[in-house]
């Protein structure tokens, strides 16, 4: 071996997630769930589930790093319970999620709209107008649509159960309408 190559020792490989957890500095934990319609990224703070995303892991991590904290790590532990529930949901074995949600990414109005969407039972649907009314602003169906489009935790908070009035189309869905279609079919709503 040349002297140069003997000098080229590499740094220790630290498990950053373990270190962060030990220090109580694991601000955001990230994991992935395989679903029939693609990979769902899930992220949780200490307060609860903060994000589910149909976009790729790197993009999601950058987003959450900027919006919540750059102390963000891919690690199973904190997100395993919600991952299991999502697996069960996509298998048709679960109709309701039992998880604390950290609403830090949404403002007050959006929270009201999303809480109204969360009250729509499995297998049923509602309209943007009805959800807007439930959130306290019956005329604001467009704003309700926008708030639903900004749902930080799709699937778990069922913005997919909200359709335009008249139901000629199933409406829009961040991540792709085919996903909304799959979820509604899974639930037996369409």
């Amino acid at each position, binding site marked *: 071996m040349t002297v140069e190559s003997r*000098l080229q*020792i590499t740094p220790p490989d630290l498990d950053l997630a373990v270190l962060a957890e030990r220090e109580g500095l694991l601000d955001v934990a990230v994991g992935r769930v395989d679903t029939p319609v693609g990979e769902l990224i899930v992220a949780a703070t200490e307060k609860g589930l903060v994000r589910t995303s149909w976009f790729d892991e790197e993009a999601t991590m950058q987003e959450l790093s900027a919006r919540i904290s750059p102390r963000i790590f891919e690690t199973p532990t904190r997100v395993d319970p919600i991952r299991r529930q999502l697996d069960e949901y996509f298998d048709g074995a679960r109709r309701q999620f039992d998880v604390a949600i950290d609403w830090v990414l949404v403002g007050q109005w959006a929270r009201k709209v999303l809480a109204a969407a969360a009250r729509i039972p499995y297998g049923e649907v509602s309209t943007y107008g009805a959800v807007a009314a439930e959130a306290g602003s019956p005329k604001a169906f467009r704003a309700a649509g926008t708030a639903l489009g900004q749902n930080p935790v799709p699937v778990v908070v069922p913005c997919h159960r909200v359709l335009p009035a008249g139901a000629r189309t199933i409406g829009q869905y961040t991540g792709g309408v085919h996903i909304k279609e799959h979820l509604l079919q899974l639930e037996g709503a369409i």
Partner: protein
Amino acid sequence: MVLPPFPSLVEEHRTAVWGYLVALVGRADAPDLYQDTVLSALRAYPKVHDASNLRSWLLSVAHSRVVDRARARARRPEVLGDPPEHSSPVVASERDDELWSVVADLPEKQRHAVVLRFVGDLSYAAVAELTDTSEAAARQNVRAALARLRKELS
């Protein structure tokens, strides 16, 4: 400016930080200081004001850890014959003790330059900046160090 996720930060700069620590404190002490540095950086990270030169920031965190450890050691001198704090199960030949003992004996400028260059994988420009010399001097120091190492290790 936006801070990158901490794991990306470490991924990008880990080699440079490691090289810097091996240059300053030697092969044996570097692993502990590396972990100290990463932990320190983790604690301070969200408070970083200037995201434009994160490598510089990390190296200054590393430097602080080196200084702190030197102070702690000065207050608590080690008794001769104490076993090393973190003895490794890896055998001496795998750790390449022979190489690192010759490196430790190099004059400081040569030692720093050759370690920053080959362990830290830093450019000559970066080596020059960190050792407060010219690029030409950095190259010369590396050349001289390699010549000495080759001679002592043949």
